[in-house]
């Protein structure tokens, strides 16, 4: 479903991705782990076409993202959901308006049906009663859940999560991961989760991929990675796990 081939990306002469290659099968959920600044979020932004590679390509469902423009790119993005690290909720809209926005703009559903869908989605993420609040009036965890509701309201085939638990306390972080898992069981989306929530995230993913210095350093099931003899993987998984 998602194929990343020999991806290279530099910023001001600093090479962040150095020929990264990765494949995610349909319905599979992978965790992308690695040290800060190793290029995980940059990789995610390439997968959705927000960044263009210097070299290499990203193929989503057989289509090379770097060749897609205008309407074709928009059509592909209609099938994507993206949970931003900071939520990226529209701050001049209420929680309800934020979740309803993609439905209003991208579908021909009636106002009543949109209302019903939004309330349903907000209930799933335990935000009933907060629909009239603005993003600045709710906590970080609630922002993440509202953003999750907005990303899932259109039933995307591919979901990308950029550090969904960062900045949250362990209880809410775990709740978010469980929510992602529940949504995956319901929608069977293909997912990539960029996270530092190790080992909690291992319970909800099929595969774990470790990015180190711009390339894939480890790729396997959570158990395989935990048992890896690679000192870099062990140090990271061990340290993060202990934290």
């Amino acid at each position, binding site marked *: 479903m998602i194929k990343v081939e020999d991806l290279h990306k530099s910023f001001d002469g600093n090479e962040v991705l150095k020929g990264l290659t990765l494949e995610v099968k349909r319905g599979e959920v992978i965790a992308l782990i690695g040290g800060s600044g190793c290029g995980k979020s940059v990789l995610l932004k390439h997968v*959705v076409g*927000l960044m263009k590679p210097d070299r290499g390509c990203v193929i989503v469902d057989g289509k090379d993202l770097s060749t897609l423009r205008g309407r074709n790119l*928009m*059509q592909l*993005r*209609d099938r*994507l959901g*993206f949970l*931003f690290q*900071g939520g*990226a*909720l*529209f*701050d001049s809209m209420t929680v309800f308006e934020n979740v309803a*926005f*993609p439905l209003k*703009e*991208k579908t021909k559903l009636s106002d009543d049906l949109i209302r019903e869908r939004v309330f349903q989605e907000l209930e799933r993420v335990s935000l009933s009663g907060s629909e009239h609040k603005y993003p600045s009036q709710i906590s970080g965890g609630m922002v993440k859940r509202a953003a999750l509701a907005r990303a899932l309201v*259109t039933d995307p085939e591919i979901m990308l999560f950029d550090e969904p638990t960062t900045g949250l306390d362990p209880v809410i972080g775990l709740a978010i991961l469980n929510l992602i898992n529940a949504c995956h069981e319901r929608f069977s989306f293909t997912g990539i989760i960029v996270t530092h929530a190790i080992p909690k995230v291992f319970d909800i993913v099929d595969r774990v991929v470790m990015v180190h210095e711009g390339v894939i350093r480890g790729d396997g099931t959570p158990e395989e990675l935990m048992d890896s003899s690679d000192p870099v993987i062990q140090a990271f998984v061990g340290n993060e796990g202990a934290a």
Partner: protein
Amino acid sequence: MATFARLADMFLLRKLGGAGLEYLYRMGVMGLFLLKAFFYVFIPPLKFIRVVKRVHFIGFQSMLVIVLTGGFTGMVLGFQGYNSLSKFGSEAFLGPMVGLSLIKEMGPVLTALVVAGMAGSAITAEIGIMRITEQVDAMELMGLNPYRYLVVPNLLAIMISLPLLTAIFDVIGIFGGFLIGVKLLGVGTGTYFGEMASYMAMKDIMEGVYKSLSFGIIIVWVCCFKGYYTGVFTGFGAEGVSRATIQAVVLCFVLILAWDYFMTSLLF
């Protein structure tokens, strides 16, 4: 020593060349931004409700300042004009002087400067904050075109609002001149308005309308561009937004005054 001097020259040339190319690149990006904005004006669907909201924001919310600025500008013109004209015994021409100055020049320019300072800076800050908090990216990832939501409504709204605000500025300004010239300094009401009517033509009014329309396009072009490219050309975070806002207002002021000169000297 000579080698060192040659190396220094080459370094300087490379720096200058690099800066020149970067400047050209930015101008190109800015030009394309305007073209895209106009392109999406004519491609449906148009976000009509957003246009109305922006007319309220740009037009209605600037009105009080425009009324005050227009009134005081007209009053100053009344005083200065009377003082200058009375030296030649031509106080009767106070009406045409105030009217023509306002309608052809001061009305469009001062209104545009006020709107650039108020609404323009707010547009840059708003889009800039949306950019750095990834709200623009979120819009793109929903398969929506940010130009339709952030640029086109502002462009249409300012093309509706600015000529109207300029007209209000002109009318209030003429009334301000009337207060000083007629009520305070004793020029006759008939003389003030009669002479104004006989020296003013439709062409003069249209000159003001064309100017305000083009100033409006400049304001939205510059302010939306600076906001949209916050983090790319102006640095990141709150500092980036602040820098983008300052740059937008300063560039608007310079472009409005320069474009006013070109329009006045070449077109009219």
